[in-house]
């Protein structure tokens, strides 16, 4: 394990934000617990390979995201998006509507955002990672992260504005 870091304090510092990220992606407690446990299991076995202790948070979120993608890999493949051809729309949610939302509504709406945008959007709202760190976590270039976030946020807010999370309005691509 990275020197100077003991396992318990790493767990104490990060298990809650990791679980919240996992739950945002899976919307299922059991799956989120599994992903969080799997992440720390990998940390227990491979964490010592990390030389830069300031990267622990990024390392853990990257590991969890990879585990999530791996679990999804068998079910479906991500559709291919040509981001540069998709016109950017600005978010549309009003403060009054935003203040009336509850957590399950927001997560239901997130589940209806195109899958490729879900992790960037969750990290946008949940974590105080820099965009560079988010790019590392998602293993995509910085510009791609920003494009995906912008489009994901616009989709999320459009769904929340429509007020019908069971029958979402998705952007055509």
């Amino acid at each position: 394990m990275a020197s100077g870091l003991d396992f318990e304090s790493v767990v104490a510092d990060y298990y809650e934000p990791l679980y919240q990220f996992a739950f945002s992606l899976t919307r299922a407690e059991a799956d989120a617990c599994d992903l969080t446990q799997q992440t720390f299991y990998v940390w227990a076995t491979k964490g010592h390979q990390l030389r830069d202790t300031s990267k622990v948070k990024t390392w853990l979120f990257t590991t969890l995201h990879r585990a999530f993608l791996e679990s999804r890999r068998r079910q479906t493949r991500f559709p291919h998006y040509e981001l540069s051809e998709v016109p950017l729309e600005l978010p549309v949610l009003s403060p009054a509507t935003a203040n009336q939302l509850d957590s399950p509504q927001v997560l239901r709406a997130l589940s209806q955002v195109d899958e490729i945008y879900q992790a960037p959007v969750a990290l946008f709202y949940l974590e105080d990672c820099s965009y560079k760190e988010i790019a590392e976590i998602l293993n995509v270039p910085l510009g791609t992260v920003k494009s995906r976030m912008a489009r994901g946020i616009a989709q999320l807010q459009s769904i929340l504005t429509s007020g019908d999370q069971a029958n979402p309005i998705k952007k055509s691509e």
Partner: protein
Amino acid sequence: MNNQQAKEILALYRPGTADAEDPFFAEALQRCDREPELKRWFDEHCTVYTAIRARFKQIAVPEGLKQQILSECTARAKIIWWQRPELLAVAAAIALLMGLAVFWLRTPRPGEDTFGHYSTRMTGIARRGDYLMDFETNDLTQIRSYLAQHHAPADYVLPAGLRKVAATGCAVEGWQNTKASMICFRTGKPLPPGEANDLWLFVIDRSAVKDAPASSAPQFAKVNRFITATWAQGDRLYLLLTEGDQRTIQQYL
């Protein structure tokens, strides 16, 4: 930069974070000071961001998750500690103390020999596929012989439901200086690629597990997507694990 371009940039701005110092946002933020309409839009964006972030942060973390993580991974982390070359060198330098260290390591620490730890450790092994099958066969008689030859519990009694399921092999797992038998089965349900088993039975000497259930009536516990059934029979403690709920596992008892 016009207001529309500034909005496209500021849509990614997160108030209360290091974004305030990020040069990416600097010009658009400066423009807010000069453009009232842009400033109004930006204030609304910050309010909406804060409201939605609060909803994400309200996701409740299950009680006991931290303890579950610690109890499953701590034992593994200790093993890895001894696998690190630089620490092995240090260990060699203090070889004189190894006798004492071995004695210390072989003595279960308070709380580490409990049923809770045993259950978490064994279910973790099965769920994560963290084992190598020592002996692969569908023949239950050969599995029993193999386990007996390797001094693991082999006098177990399989429940009627389990006798109808195809065995795939077995492994001997260690637990606090005691051997546990792991017998693997395949129920016949579709399995993800690369996985060969979806039902596992662990058998261990009941006296090796503190607070082990003494009842022959199965006790059920949910472990994320999995379910365990635990019961005692004679000197043996049985732990059966599969994905699903209580109804799923009951058909194998």
